[in-house]
């Protein structure tokens, strides 16, 4: 049951972004744009070695560089570094040029140690250990249901495969970082973050000061995708530099190079999967043995953000007998962080790939096999809707059977996500002139949180969103949570709803107008004279939901002579409960799909075994999808207003890569076994002529 209006006049419509005009003029100020009086430029010195014992760091030459005002070490030597890019120290000065010169001047004495950067090598007992006192492989996570061996024996068909996904980088366009001013009376931090409160906690903890002395501001931020919760090591270094420089503000934003090394990633996966089914398609047995890396801290407690290199298995589908064994293996590389639907895209790729193999083995249409085994009624319905819109029945053909060197193929995949609401607070102020201000200590990652708040207030007050102003991204505002797990919309919208409902009641009694909404608004507000109404609200049950399903279908073209894959079309059917802003929801879904295309075809962090460096710490060879890589995207939002508000930022990126991989396999007549699906991989698959089943 949902407490939202049954016949909304604002909810669910296309609304323009609250901060669109300021963003298109380049006038929005991000943490990286902050230049408080006296600010200094900050930069970090990073380890060029994948493993080393740092014996000494001499900062004096850096402090001798003209314009340099402060220099600090990341730790007191001696200490160990465990990946290329680990922080050694930092400097602050009057210009970027001074800082660059200072970084080059710092003298570091270190003993270089053996290292390992490939997962399969790190698993060997004879390989160097990332931490001396523990093996690289963490304790495996094991799960079992039923009698797997018996179930495989009873199966009519069994298929198996080995699937591999790379480490994917977040690469938010605004790099990680903060502008921080540390004075004796407290600290002000302009952060590029998904969680102003977690930045605040982190800084207070790191610097040993109380929370009332920490003020965090993030009015605009340039993308996070799971990687921007805390102030980071860079935040701590900036604060120390600021203190060292006598309280001058320090703007320390990472470089693109740093982004590829040190601020998180999606773990890799190597999955050996086996699936058994009855003739009629009923899945009976599933076995997975997988490993992957969440970086140097794999196997420890801090890796992964979303559970190390593990992932949900079996993904989505009900299989009565399962055996799963997942291992996180440490390598000398930067640590993972939560990345948009942690674990799920990897899980989806392995599961949906083996499921398509099963469909072929049983001669069952892939969509029908999914409908048969998917426990979600929502997704089963979505498959029918998607198939209709996509033209699945006409387009699906047996693998590799389209004529000529340019082959077409289709594939599909499904996804699930939680995305429920949690305890956010919000405040609404109704001024005597009728103007309305909504405040919440949340932050807008680009998902449109500000706009959503204006829509909810406008809905309850019978106003237009343009009549409502918004304040967010400040720790002095009513507390909210971090923006992650697709929870922001479902947390903030109910809190605003609650505040507005209370305020509306107060306005009715203050004005004596029983329904002060809409055309009565100004007259009612005028009764307030000089005393505005300020009402607080909090998230409550009944306005948000959790658990969404979505399915996607992909059509691709594969040039079997060059191995090139082009995605022609994606159809996405997505459940998101009550749609608040239809336009922004579509933006969000497009974005998730495009990030999924990157995961499918282009993105991969490449480490060098000989030197331990990241070879593609840039956008030249770490390839993000560009304008010409974007296919026709057809989004069908499945409204279920009775379920309340639910976030969709994450689920929409999950099934894209699996759907594309299945489509490429369908086109090429060979099973795609790894992402990204580059010409190199496709031509490798096609070394033998395509086999027609």
């Amino acid at each position, binding site marked *: 049951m949902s407490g939202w209006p049954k016949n909304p006049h604002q909810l669910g419509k296309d609304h323009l972004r609250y901060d669109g005009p300021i963003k*298109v003029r380049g006038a929005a100020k991000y943490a990286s*744009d902050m*230049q408080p009086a006296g600010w200094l430029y900050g930069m970090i010195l990073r380890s060029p070695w994948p493993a080393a014992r740092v014996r000494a760091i001499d900062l004096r030459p850096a402090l001798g560089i003209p314009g340099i005002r402060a220099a600090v070490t990341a730790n007191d030597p001696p200490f160990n570094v465990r990946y290329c890019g680990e922080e050694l120290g930092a400097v602050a000065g009057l210009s970027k040029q001074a800082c660059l010169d200072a970084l080059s001047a710092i003298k570091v004495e270190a003993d270089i140690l053996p290292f390992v950067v490939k997962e399969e090598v790190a698993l060997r007992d004879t390989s160097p250990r990332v931490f001396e006192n523990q093996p690289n492989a963490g304790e495996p996570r094991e799960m079992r249901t039923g009698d797997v061996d018996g179930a495989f024996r009873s199966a009519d068909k069994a298929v198996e495969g080995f699937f591999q996904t790379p480490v994917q980088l977040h690469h938010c366009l*605004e790099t990680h970082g903060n502008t921080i001013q540390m004075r004796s009376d407290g600290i002000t931090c302009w952060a590029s973050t998904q969680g102003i409160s977690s930045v605040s906690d982190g800084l207070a903890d790191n610097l040993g000061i109380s929370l009332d002395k920490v003020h965090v501001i993030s009015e605009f931020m340039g993308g996070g995708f799971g990687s921007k919760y805390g102030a980071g090591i860079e935040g701590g270094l900036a604060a120390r530099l600021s203190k060292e420089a006598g309280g001058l503000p320090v703007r320390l934003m990472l470089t693109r190079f740093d982004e590829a090394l040190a601020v998180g990633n999606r773990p890799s996966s190597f999955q050996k999967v086996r699936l058994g089914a009855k003739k009629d398609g009923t899945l009976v047995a599933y076995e997975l043995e997988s490993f992957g890396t969440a970086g140097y801290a794999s196997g420890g407690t801090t890796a992964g953000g979303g559970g190390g290199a593990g992932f949900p298995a079996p993904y989505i589908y009900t299989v009565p007998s399962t055996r799963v064994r997942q291992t996180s293996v440490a390598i000398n590389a930067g640590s993972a962080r939560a990345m948009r639907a942690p674990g799920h895209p990897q899980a989806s790729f392995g599961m949906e790939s083996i499921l398509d193999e099963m469909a072929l083995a049983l001669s069952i249409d892939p969509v029908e096999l999914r409908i048969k085994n998917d426990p979600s009624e929502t997704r089963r319905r979505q498959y029918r809707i998607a198939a209709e819109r996509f033209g699945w029945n006409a387009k699906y053909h047996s693998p590799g059977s389209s004529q000529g060197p340019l082959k077409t193929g289709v594939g599909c995949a499904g996804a699930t996500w939680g995305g429920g609401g949690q305890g956010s607070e919000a405040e609404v102020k109704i001024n005597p002139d009728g103007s309305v201000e909504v405040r919440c200590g949340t932050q807008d990652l*680009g998902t449109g949180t500000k706009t959503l708040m204006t829509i909810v207030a406008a809905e309850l007050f019978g106003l237009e969103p343009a009549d409502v102003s918004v304040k967010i991204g400040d720790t002095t505002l009513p507390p909210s949570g971090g923006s992650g797990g697709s929870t922001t919309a479902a947390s903030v919208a109910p809190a605003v709803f609650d505040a507005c409902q209370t305020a509306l009641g107060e306005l009715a009694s203050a004005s004596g107008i029983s329904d002060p909404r809409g055309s009565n608004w100004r007259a009612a507000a005028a009764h307030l004279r000089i005393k505005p109404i300020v009402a607080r609200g909090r998230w409550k049950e009944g306005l948000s939901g959790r658990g969404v399903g979505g399915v996607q279908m992909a059509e691709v073209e594969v040039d079997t002579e060059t191995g090139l894959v082009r995605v022609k079309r994606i159809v996405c059917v997505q459940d998101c409960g009550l749609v608040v802003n239809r336009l922004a929801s579509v*933006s969000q879904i*497009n*974005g998730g799909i495009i990030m999924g295309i990157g995961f499918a075809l282009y993105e991969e962090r490449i480490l060098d075994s000989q030197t331990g460096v990241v070879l593609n710490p840039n956008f*030249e060879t770490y390839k993000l999808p560009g304008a010409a890589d*974007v296919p026709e995207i057809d989004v069908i939002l499945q409204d279920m207003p009775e379920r309340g508000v639910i976030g969709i930022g994450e689920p929409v990126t999950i099934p894209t890569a699996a759907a594309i991989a299945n489509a490429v396999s369908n086109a090429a007549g060979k099973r795609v076994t790894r992402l990204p699906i580059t010409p190199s991989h496709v031509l490798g698959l096609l070394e033998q002529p395509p086999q027609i089943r």
Partner: protein
Amino acid sequence: MEEEISRRNFLRGVGASAVAGALAKAAAAAQSVESLDDQKPVGPEPEKLVLRVNGSKYEVEVEPRVTLLDVLRNRLQLTGAKEVCDRATCGACTVLLNGQPVYSCMKLAMEVQTQEITTIEGLGTPNNLTPIQRAFVECDAMMCGYCTPGFVMSLTALFSAKSNPTVEEIKKACSGNLCRCGTYPHIFKAAQRVAESGQSTT
């Protein structure tokens, strides 16, 4: 410390603003390609130079290695152009140089004296957005917004060369810009809206 700050402010051009009145006119007359010192090396010490940005003149003093992007963002407070890759791959720093889109991260400030530089701050005002900016707002052609100024600059150049580009031409014009939020479909839609409206003039 005060002295320090004021020196810094000068170097960063915090105080640098359009050179006013008669002075500006005199400077304008003097500032032509021919006026630049011939064949005489400058630097590596900071050197004074005048940049023409959005129709105004700014005097800054910079080392030869300082990029146009650095000057715009950190000395002129024109922070609409962003530093994202700093290697000519993402387009977030795109500005127009004599009307043509270029990566300001890969231009030395020294190189672009006497040339007309247009940044996002030179396009539109809060109450009078350009047709492209308006279409971006109307089509929700942005999410986090960090790449947005760069895309607006690239498309502004496209539309000043051609009022009714095809979708393919729109994609080609955006090929030097990256958006990690994945707003491309709405960017294309916005550009098509401008193309169809026939009101591309900025």
